[in-house]
């Protein structure tokens, strides 16, 4: 009757591999993982994959339809669209990383402070977040770009600021849940200070949720940044940014639809990939789906 024998301990390694198997069992998640992996590989090896310099004019005749020598066709300056899309993946990933990074860093900090401190700090901080939340993302991004000036770098900052409230709210709500768990009171009773409780106890417990939120947020950020570039407020020519390419192709849509199709499909596939991946991670990490042991 020794309680040692009641439950067989589950080795952490097997639990992790079981979760990975569960992840792979979800077909959508696997597709998402493949798309994102292809994107990352493309970005990393762009110089080897792209047959032409993305900026080189006259790589082929102007406005040629897709063919073997120009897989996605060429644009109005005779640049190879396939090479431009391949190089554009670098920009897209950078936009995603930086915009989400900014949003996550700011949102996480605000959410942690608001949720942990409570009282008047919470009220002030979270009401400010609500104010930002009540404008649509594009509007805030537009305003930010209007202040900072149009450039890819500023577009990333603008998207980061615009999507931040979403991260802050979820972080705040998660912190409130963790604060009500007994281990929180237990660490206070043990004499732990604020920094220890926030950094060593609460943060590790909310991180899985925030990872899911960030993965799903990547697609929002990519779309928002592409939107800004499309409006001419983000990436400037001749950068091979997908949103800008989309915009440039608009004038030639009836003669050369591939100019819009190539970057458009690239954006759609990337967004889909990150969404599927995020959903897959959420399914694995969702505490409601993991039996309480």
């Amino acid at each position, binding site marked *: 009757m020794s309680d040692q024998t009641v439950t067989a301990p589950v080795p952490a390694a097997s639990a992790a591999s079981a979760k990975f198997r569960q992840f792979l069992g979800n077909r959508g998640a696997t597709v998402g993982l493949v798309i994102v992996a292809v994107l990352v590989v493309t970005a990393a090896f762009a110089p080897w994959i792209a047959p032409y310099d993305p900026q080189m004019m006259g790589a082929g005749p102007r406005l040629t339809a897709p063919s073997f020598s120009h897989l996605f066709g060429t644009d109005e300056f005779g640049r190879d669209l396939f090479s431009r899309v391949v190089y554009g993946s670098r920009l897209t990933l950078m936009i995603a990383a930086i915009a989400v990074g900014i949003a996550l860093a700011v949102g996480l900090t605000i959410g942690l402070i608001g949720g942990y401190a409570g009282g008047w700090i919470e009220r002030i901080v979270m009401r400010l977040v609500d104010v930002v939340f009540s404008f649509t993302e594009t509007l805030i991004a537009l305003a930010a770009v209007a202040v900072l000036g149009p450039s890819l770098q500023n577009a990333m900052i603008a998207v980061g600021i615009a999507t931040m409230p979403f991260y802050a709210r979820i972080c705040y709500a998660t912190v409130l849940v963790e604060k009500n768990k*007994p281990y929180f*009171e237990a660490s206070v009773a043990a004499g732990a200070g604020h920094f220890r409780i926030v950094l060593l*106890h609460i943060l590790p417990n909310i991180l899985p949720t925030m990872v899911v939120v960030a993965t799903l947020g990547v697609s929002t950020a990519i779309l928002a940044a592409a939107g800004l570039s499309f409006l001419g407020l983000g990436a400037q020519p001749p950068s091979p940014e997908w949103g800008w390419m989309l915009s440039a192709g608009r004038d030639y849509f009836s003669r050369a639809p591939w100019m819009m199709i190539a970057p458009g499909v690239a954006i759609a596939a990337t967004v889909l990939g990150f969404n599927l991946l995020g959903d897959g991670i959420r399914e694995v990490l969702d505490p409601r789906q993991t039996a309480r042991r």
Partner: protein
Amino acid sequence: MTETLLEVQDLTIGFGENAADNPAVRDLSYTLYRNETLAIVGESGSGKSVSSMALMGLLPPQTARILGGTAKLGGTDLLTLDDEALRLIRGRRISMIFQEPMTSLNPVLTIGRQMTEMVLAHEPKARDAVDRSVAMLDRVKLPDPKSMMTRYPHQLSGGMRQRVMIAIALINKPEILIADEPTTALDVTVQAQVLDLMRELKDQFGTSMLLITHDMGVVAETADRMIVMRSGEKVEEGEVRPVFADPRHAYTQRLLAAVPKLGNAGPAATREAGPKRPVPIVEAVSLNKTFSDKGRDVRALDEVSFAIAPGETLALVGESGSGKSTAARAILRLIEVDSGEILQDGANIREYGPQMMRRARRQMQMIFQDPYGALDPRMRVDKLVAEPMHIHGIARGSELKDRTEALFRQVGLGPEHMKRYPHEFSGGQRQRLCIARALGVEPKLIVADEPTSALDVSIQAQVIDLMKDLQERLGLSYLFISHDLAVVEEVSHRIAVMLQGRIVELGARDDVLRNPAHDYTRSLLEAIPIADPTRQRGKLVVRDRSTFSRGPLVAVGQDHMAAS
């Protein structure tokens, strides 16, 4: 009483992919006779609930699989019925009441709707559904059954809700009532009333009852026969009296021995509480705390004063809402009281700043009711145990590691357990980890909030033994919060009984338990189910809690005070 009603044979149930390798219930056979109460007893994980859910077809369909066996009710095998056939049996021939009266009623429907629904589900044309519901509510002794029909679940107390559940379960006069831990979530006085009611109704309706419980006291008071289960297998079966008097299986013997019985604790636990009381470790003076809940003020602490001497265990006893947990947290300043003093070494720690408070907390550590939640799930247990020592700068580096290992040994765990995460431990082991964590800073006082109530009895006994052993060796003081008087008798030197935020009786353990001076203490003691089937308790006198005297404490004996 010999007419067979339900016959379960070789029931085997498994979970998950490897269901057949490690079944949760293995070859379980039993017979339920007409108009008898059969108790299925076991600790968590014994398969007692799973086997009964299978009868109702309530097992989770994705994961659970019935691997074999039959359950014959009359001529039909319940295990082979389809959904529609099962539906006709559920609520009509077999009913069930659940452990959680708070959540097993639908919160957005009136009691009346939920009662009549049960009638109409089986007799869609019944015109007297309302009348029958009112009559049934009357039979479970709910006051003013007519107006009860229009009320919502949140307007009722836990005990009233469980009565409603019983009324719903019995309204179609089922042949079998399955009661899964029906009183575990209730306070002890309410539990006694509900058990009384269930006994009475069982006889009136001629219903057979399948009582699933871990509580030997409930078995002794309610059941005719019993089955003891362990790890999915039946280990013993028989009439209640012979099994209690002469358990055959070693597991039953251990289970019965582990049950804390009131009046069984030897005098050894009592420390000589001489007339010259030493300087207290901590003293609470006139603590007051009012919570406001939706505009209504609830006095959680009302002029609460007590003192704890070195090496002494003071038990705070009371039912839910009595303020005992608030008092425990107030001592550690996890909750700030509205007024009053908390004295440690003569200084009021309520005036301390963060630095001083941290030092004060070194003297006072806490262990919690829920050992599952009290350990940060994402921190390795050696780090968790070492954390308080780290915080208070007691040791670093290899010394910290050595001390952590020593703590693991002290609570009966080994160094091989150190590199794991909390979810890899059982409930009892987790509570040991919590104790190890509290001991690291060499506190003088440990506040223990219901430390054993989430644990099985056998493990509960181990944890209590550990706590007592540590007290002997280290001279610890405990503030022990509990609703379970039998456990309290085993650990405490002095007892304070709380009722609605006030201490109504305070004195040495034996004075309070053997010679209670306050009516409320007496009613608590009378309500405890006794794990002795030969002892018959008379009918309980139901008394409203607000009728007890709650005046200032007056001395009724040496070191023994009661509210006037």
